[in-house]
């Protein structure tokens, strides 16, 4: 079925008046529901409620006793076996004796429907296996013996095996049983990513209702062979329904679930559009004590970790405010000084830290707590800022429960223009941080048995000064920073954060009057500049103006990761005159084909571009085939050197890079690039770059030769200094 067809039927899978069971005896009756493409539906219910039966029926392991099951518009039982194997992958717990086998070999079993009679693996199969292992983060387990892995690892291996089938539908029967909490959360994160990013529809049964609440798009509650309720977790998973589902005393359930679990009436009114906020809210389903000291790997971290070592996550100003509010409220209401503050972020990661200071007013009606925000390795203006929450008792007693009022104090901005998350006039504290703060304060109040009205005042030290360097003045947020954060966690090098940070840096440089800037994709480019230019007229510093002035440096450098196109657009729009890109040819050679986001997830094409240019310059077929197979650009260059056309190809590619840059610049800005590789040194200096180099403080320019001489020299000095 092609893309168009699939788009035409929004229902990916569907059960119609389904009776499911064994040998003609239905254990599950009259079930009708549909599963959308990319949707994750969890089945919950007591043992024997028919969860596995339903899954087995959808996996076509069981014939429906009555009714029909459709998959991508086709009746399930009319789909040929091999076709189905390419559509649906299953993960059922079959505890069986296994022979000792390498993990990669176990994973490769999933290629069954794609391989020939004897199941021998081809290159494409190996690609699929690697991709699946990367996705489930088990690449480094490839050579281990499957039988010796932990349960969590085994489950990830089996998931990888399922993924090598390239399924559009995943069916999992209690995949989190036998796993400890860490692996449960990690597995669920992977599943959620598969549904959101890869569009895989997922149907699974879960015992852990907190996981179902946290990760499902919808839950289907089964009780005694019937659908009990179905809907988004925040609508259907309230205490009363759960108690009824499991035949549990509601009071008993209350002792297990956190106070954050909503009553039915409260939960229903939530707007559907505010999906992020719901993520935040559903995070609270998880009992905070239950989730002790756990760190959850976020989707995407795998890549971040493999490409840049040791990137540290931080937390948002919203989380900082919630931590401070917790400390202040606890001190105020129970009179204890907390040594460690700890909150669960909406992303499912627990953040713990020690408060900077805690204080209590003489009349014991106000307490304040200050924490230091740690943005991790994400470039951020508000990193290390001190955020204080002051909690004040406005009214005590009454039987209307607890009311929490949140406001911004000194250093926290105020909204003056419409169109933002908060209405005009209120403090620039977004709804997710507000919810986080409220949750923490409410919990403290409940613990202390407090009833009445509390006011939380969030302030930020030097917030006004810092805010001047942010987007806030433009957004019409005056008087301080915004308390932001939808996930509560700052992801290092996350796409949006990065583009935002590039924008902020470029904007600041423009504001400081710079007209030229060097853009570099990352650490390699930075290191290259440092190694090759130190001792020359240019000393590299990261954005510290005083120091740059002191060193008489004329051009600042901004790291732009893979977002070359975005950075160029920003530079152009901000009115820079000249932009010099300096980077490893492994990334920048992609520009020769007009690939402006050099992340390998977006596009690769390096070998292809090099091969095409080599072909035009008369390389023979052997050489071209070698180029296509080469893994790194340096390897390509070696081959070209052998073929004696290295220089020509470099020149040709460099010219192509310039053409694409010029096109992107739209004539409003002059852009050049310097490409190098670790083994071959300078790869090429584009025409514009050549013109620009003197403006950037390179005394004689002198083209590629001049550069390489200086690099030789630098290498020598480096060796001496080591």
């Amino acid at each position: 079925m092609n893309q168009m067809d699939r788009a035409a039927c929004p229902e990916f899978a569907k059960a119609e008046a389904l009776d499911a069971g064994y040998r003609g005896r239905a254990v599950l009756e009259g079930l009708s529901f549909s599963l959308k493409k990319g949707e994750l539906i969890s089945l919950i219910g007591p043992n024997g409620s028919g969860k596995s039966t339903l899954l087995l029926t959808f996996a076509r392991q069981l014939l429906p006793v009555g009714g029909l099951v459709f998959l991508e518009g086709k009746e399930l039982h009319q789909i040929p076996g091999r076709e189905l194997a390419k559509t649906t992958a299953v993960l059922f717990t079959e505890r069986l004796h296994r022979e000792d086998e390498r993990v990669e070999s176990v994973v490769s079993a999933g290629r069954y429907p794609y391989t020939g009679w004897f199941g021998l693996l081809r290159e494409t199969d190996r690609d699929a296996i690697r991709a699946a292992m990367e996705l489930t983060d088990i690449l480094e387990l490839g050579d281990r013996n499957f039988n010796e892995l932990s349960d969590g690892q085994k489950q990830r291996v089996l998931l990888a095996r399922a993924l090598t089938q390239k399924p559009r539908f995943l069916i999992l029967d209690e995949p989190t049983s036998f796993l400890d909490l860490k692996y449960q959360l990690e597995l669920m994160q992977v599943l959620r990513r598969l549904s959101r990013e890869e569009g895989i529809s997922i149907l699974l049964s879960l015992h852990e209702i907190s996981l179902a609440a946290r990760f499902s798009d919808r839950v289907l509650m089964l009780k005694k062979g019937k659908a009990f309720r179905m809907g988004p977790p925040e609508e259907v998973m309230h205490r009363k329904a759960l108690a009824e589902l499991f035949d549990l005393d509601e009071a008993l359930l209350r002792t297990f679930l956190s106070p954050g679990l909503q009553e039915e009436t409260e939960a229903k009114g939530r707007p559907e559009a505010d999906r992020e906020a719901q993520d935040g809210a559903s995070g609270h389903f998880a009992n905070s004590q239950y989730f002790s000291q756990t760190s959850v790997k976020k989707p995407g971290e795998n890549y971040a970790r493999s490409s840049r070592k040791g990137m540290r996550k931080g937390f948002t100003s919203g989380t900082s405010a919630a931590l401070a509010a917790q400390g202040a409220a606890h001190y105020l209401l129970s009179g204890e000084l907390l040594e460690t503050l700890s909150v669960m972020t909406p992303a499912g990661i627990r953040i713990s830290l020690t408060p900077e200071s805690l204080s209590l007013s003489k009349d014991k009606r106000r307490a304040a707590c200050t924490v230091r925000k740690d943005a991790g390795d994400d470039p951020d203006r508000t990193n290390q800022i001190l955020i204080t929450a002051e909690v004040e008792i406005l009214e005590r007693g009454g039987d209307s429960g607890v009311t929490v009022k949140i406001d911004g104090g000194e250093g926290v901005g105020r909204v003056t223009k419409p169109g933002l998350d908060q209405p005009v006039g209120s403090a620039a504290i977004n709804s997710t941080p507000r919810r986080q703060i409220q949750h923490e304060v409410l919990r403290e109040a409940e613990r202390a048995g407090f009833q009445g009205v509390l006011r939380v005042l969030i302030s930020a030290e030097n917030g006004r000064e810092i805010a001047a360097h942010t987007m806030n003045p433009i957004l019409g947020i005056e008087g301080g920073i915004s308390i932001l954060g939808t996930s509560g966690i700052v992801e290092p090098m996350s796409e949006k954060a990065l583009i935002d940070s590039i924008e902020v840096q470029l904007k600041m440089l423009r504001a400081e009057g710079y007209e030229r800037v060097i853009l570099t994709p990352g650490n390699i480019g930075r290191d290259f500049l440092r190694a090759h230019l130190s001792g020359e007229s240019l000393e590299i510093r990261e954005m510290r103006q005083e120091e740059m002035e002191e060193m008489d440096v004329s051009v600042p450098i901004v790291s732009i990761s893979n977002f070359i196109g975005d950075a160029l657009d920003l530079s152009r729009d901000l009115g820079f005159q000249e932009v010099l890109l300096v980077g490893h040819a492994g990334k920048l050679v992609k520009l020769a084909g007009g690939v402006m986001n050099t992340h390998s997830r977006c596009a690769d094409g390096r070998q292809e571009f090099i091969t095409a240019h080599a072909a035009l310059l008369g390389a023979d077929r052997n050489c071209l085939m070698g180029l296509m197979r080469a893994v790194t650009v340096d390897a390509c260059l070696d081959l070209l050197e052998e073929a004696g056309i290295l220089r020509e190809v470099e020149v040709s590619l460099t010219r192509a890079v310039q053409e694409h840059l010029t096109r992107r610049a739209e004539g409003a800005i002059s852009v050049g690039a310097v490409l190098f590789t670790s083994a071959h040194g300078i790869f090429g200096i584009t025409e514009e770059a050549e013109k620009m180099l003197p403006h950037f403080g390179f005394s004689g320019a002198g083209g590629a030769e001049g550069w390489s001489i200086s690099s030789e020299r630098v290498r020598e000095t480096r060796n001496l200094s080591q």
Partner: protein
Amino acid sequence: MRPPVRISKEERRIRARSVLVLTLLLALVFGAFLFSICLGSVKIPIGEVFSAFFYGGGHAGEESETLVRIVMDIRAPRALLAFFSGGALALSGYLLQTFFRNPIAGPYVLGISSGAKLAVSLALIISIRRSGSISSFVLILAAFSGALFSTFLILLFSLRIRSMAVLLVAGIMVGYIASAGTDLLFSFSDDAQILNLHGWSQGSFSGARMGSTLEAGAFILILLLLVFLLSKPIGAYQNGEVYAKSMGIPVRSLQLSIIVLSSLLSGSVTAIAGPVSFVGIAVPFLVRKMLRDHRPIIMIPALFLAGGLFTELSDLLSRMLISPAELSLSSVTSLIGAPIVLVMMLERRRSAP
């Protein structure tokens, strides 16, 4: 960056191991074959053996003529038959282990060989009474139906008995019942028949003729080929029944094929040489130890070679240990195989949680 598609060092090592083991087994099989032909109450120099094979005796002479007869009519068919039977038994055991998902399953312990023995005894006695002779086709057919009957009996039990240990005990019981039936048959037959039967029921390759050996060999090789062609679905089946089904494999047909092929393999051996014990368990265990790639596509040929080797050597020992008299084949295979199975069970116990 496109990840370089490479085969890891470990995988290379595992592959090299497979190649090495297969080559070694092939060489050893050949060596054992020559050994079996040279050794015996009459020692035959290796040169004579080659000339017997390639020139039908080479230079004339009565003595040499006798040697050629010994090689071509007695020792070579016997060694060949031992090889084919051993391979068939190892393969049959492997299939049963796959089916029952237990490495201790085998045609002998599950009473399948005994079932075949009973059927063969019955067929022998009936047809010898009637016509005084029996065709090897009838013999194999009887053995096969006996094996199949016992297998389905075990299958029937396995539907009700979940515990593997209990199932094995049931298999052993089936074996005893079949053996008792065979003994009962003996008491209804005359002395000459008993002598024949008794010798046969202990397992022996002593009566092997070149013609029937080649026929049996061809039959077993066809079965081997069929099993080999199933190696991909068998591998998937080893990953679990639900999993195999999700791969589009018709699991019921596969199960039936496994059972039928296994019964044909063990049945044909029983028809030819009588029940031979422990080869079906001990050899797969040893081969698993030798190989590190346990996919059926490697296991099946390796098993066949190793089973052949094991049985060839056992047969040689049965002839040599108390020469000129012979030990029964099963005594030798039990002597070697049973301790191996014991070790294996101990190991399993240790690795089980």
